[in-house]
């Protein structure tokens, strides 16, 4: 069952099989969540060799996804790629519950990014990060929403992903491969998030587009959800601090 969980979480990059991201978007993001559920009811594999092979496969998927993310400018695709890049993170979490928290928060942020992307696609006619620029000036609420998602995905505190990750690894006595994975996850997430941020959030607004911001109510709902996640992150961190 552990393998099934890992496959769902992105061990095998199944996004290759899907061409129409717009249509199957929600399903694609739901699959890793199912994987997380399966993982919850299963024991981590004990066989060292099998464990190492899986770790290698996950690392390979992560690297592959990272390079694929640099080939696309479509925000919808990029929102999935964040999930697949992080599959390797499973191998540095010693505490099962902490990983579930981390991956859950990750899927939530990826889903938020997906929502922003579909909104942009629907309202502006494109989800291309090179075309939709200057959101900070033209659609500040949407920009704030995007900023929250990207800061969480880019592993920056005080958002949950960074806090959970820090709390988990600081006291976990990592091995050498653990340090390698930690470095990879740290930088891969950062580069992916900041590429989107510097292109879409900032820059001169596109004069050919008519910008329309999201409603205040949506912003409030997501701000509250992000705050709740952050509190969960702080809770996990307090266990390390005290």
């Amino acid at each position, binding site marked *: 069952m552990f393998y099934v969980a890992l496959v769902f979480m992105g061990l095998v990059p199944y996004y290759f099989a899907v061409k129409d991201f717009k249509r199957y978007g929600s399903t694609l993001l739901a699959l890793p969540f199912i994987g997380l559920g399966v993982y919850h009811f299963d024991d981590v594999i004990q066989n060292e060799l099998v464990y190492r092979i899986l770790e290698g496969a996950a690392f390979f998927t992560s690297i592959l996804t990272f390079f694929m993310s*640099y080939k696309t400018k479509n925000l919808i695709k990029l929102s999935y790629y964040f999930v697949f890049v992080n599959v390797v993170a499973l191998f540095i979490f010693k505490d099962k519950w902490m990983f579930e928290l981390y991956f859950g928060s990750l899927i939530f942020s990826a889903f938020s990014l997906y929502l922003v992307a579909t909104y942009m696609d629907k309202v502006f006619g494109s989800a291309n990060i090179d075309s939709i620029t*200057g959101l*900070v*000036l033209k659609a*500040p609420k949407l920009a704030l929403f995007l900023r929250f998602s990207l*800061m969480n995905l880019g592993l*920056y*505190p*005080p958002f949950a992903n*960074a*806090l959970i990750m*820090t*709390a988990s*690894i*600081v*006291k976990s*006595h*990592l091995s050498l491969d653990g*340090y390698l994975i*930690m*470095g990879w996850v*740290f*930088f891969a997430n*950062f580069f992916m998030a*900041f*590429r989107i941020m*510097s292109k879409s*959030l*900032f*820059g*001169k*607004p596109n004069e050919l587009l008519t910008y329309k911001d999201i409603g205040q109510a949506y912003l409030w709902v997501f701000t509250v959800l992000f705050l709740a996640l952050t509190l969960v992150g702080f809770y996990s*961190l*307090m266990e*390390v*601090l*005290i």
Partner: protein
Amino acid sequence: MEIVVSIPFIPLVIAALISFVDDKRSIPRISMFFSGLIAIISLVGTAYEFMFHKVIVGFYGTIVFDHLSSILVPYVALIGLVIRKYASNYMWDEKGYKRFFIILNFIFSSIYLMIMANNLVVMFIAWQILSLSLYFLISFRVESKDAVRFGSWAITVHRIGDFLFLLGTVLTYKVYHTLNLQELYRIWQTNIEHSTMVNAIALLFVASAMAKSAIIPFYFWLPYTSEAPTPVSALMHAGIVNAGGILLNKIAYLYLSSSIALNTAFFFGILTAIAASVVMLSKPDIKRSLGYSTVGQMGYMIMEAGIGAFSVAIYHLIVHGIFKASLFLESGNVIHLARKDPNIPKNLSYKLFSEETEENRKTIGEIVAIFTIIPIVLFTLIEFFINRVQFQFQAGIIFLAFGWLTSAQLFLSFFKVSKNTSLKTILGLIVSFVFIVLTYEFMGTTFEEYLYGPKYVEFYKAASLSMPYLLVLLGILIGVIVFGWAIIYYQSYKDASGTRFEKLRWAFYKIFSRGFFLPDLLIRYFKLL
């Protein structure tokens, strides 16, 4: 007194309040009121520390107000007050006035948290929030391509620093089984062990500090951040780049066990101080020039920590911060004035720097006397009378070498500017020089005893280099300086145009003026993304 430990959270309250305010005029009022409150609380805390020498602990022991905080928190609070006041007028016409104040308060919160953290993880969190907020402020003028690009440079370098910090924290727990700084201080003072792991931890923190303080090889992000609004530049040069020095001071006792890390800090510090000063002189752009000047000053600061003078580094960062913030804020004022009046206001600096009235050539003997003998004699005397302890260690020699270099440069630059060298001017220069060195030494020594007690001598001992290495280093340093002066002399008095020497000089000029070509490489790399 526990209220003092809540200082890092007050700017967050300000940011939250501002986000709900729609009236533009209320934003600076809220910001000023609460930052004034922070300044008052911090001063009360400092008075308490001075009187009772008792560490104030809060938030489950994760935040403290100790001796270091009692110096730095009021400093940041007062700088913050000035910058907020200045920004409230300066930024009025900019798009995103509210956004600016919100991010500014996040930056202040992270600086306070970093200074007052009593746990490496808390400090790591503050360290990262500082990087992120800085990125948002540098890219504040979102429509400017350069602002966004240079913001990306800054955040990338800072991210490397963040990772090194994280690695250092993970390894610290692995070796010492605690992340609490008060406990770590006790361990570091009593168990001095020179193991590979301890050296690795110390080096990781040094490298992280170097990234934050723009030390070679991480220097390139700082001079290119001038696209940010003037108050941000002031804050960056007065506060944020000092984070490296603050980190090294916070974990200073660790370096009792790692001479290698101190020597590394010294090497990169001295290299940055010299290289950045030379690049600064070759930059035609005043803002970049000021940026490289700060890089050079950060080099001095890290070098001071590298020779064991941790508290002198603290004094240096405060003085440099006040000086640079004033410079940036004043430059913003001049730009505002120049927009109204195309002529440069004829103030004191104009008279000093632009109105050269009389040509007065000197002989080589006079130049040696004025630029070499007088400064070195004065500096040695002051150093010897105020800080004798330093003279028992190599720190004394290094201070003398740098004192000589900087004071001679100071004299040289003043004489270059104003060639009308009357006896009155010379006396004025000497008196002001004596005053500066006296204050520097006096404050440095006072800080040493206040921050580290008698233990500060141990730092000098730990930082000692092997004698042949030191002599070679000093030899190279003096050789470079004398060679530089010889070039200046040659250039002034001989006609060298068209010679091989002139071609070589231009080749060097090109390398320095392009900042060793690293920025060009980065521009290409970021264009590819």
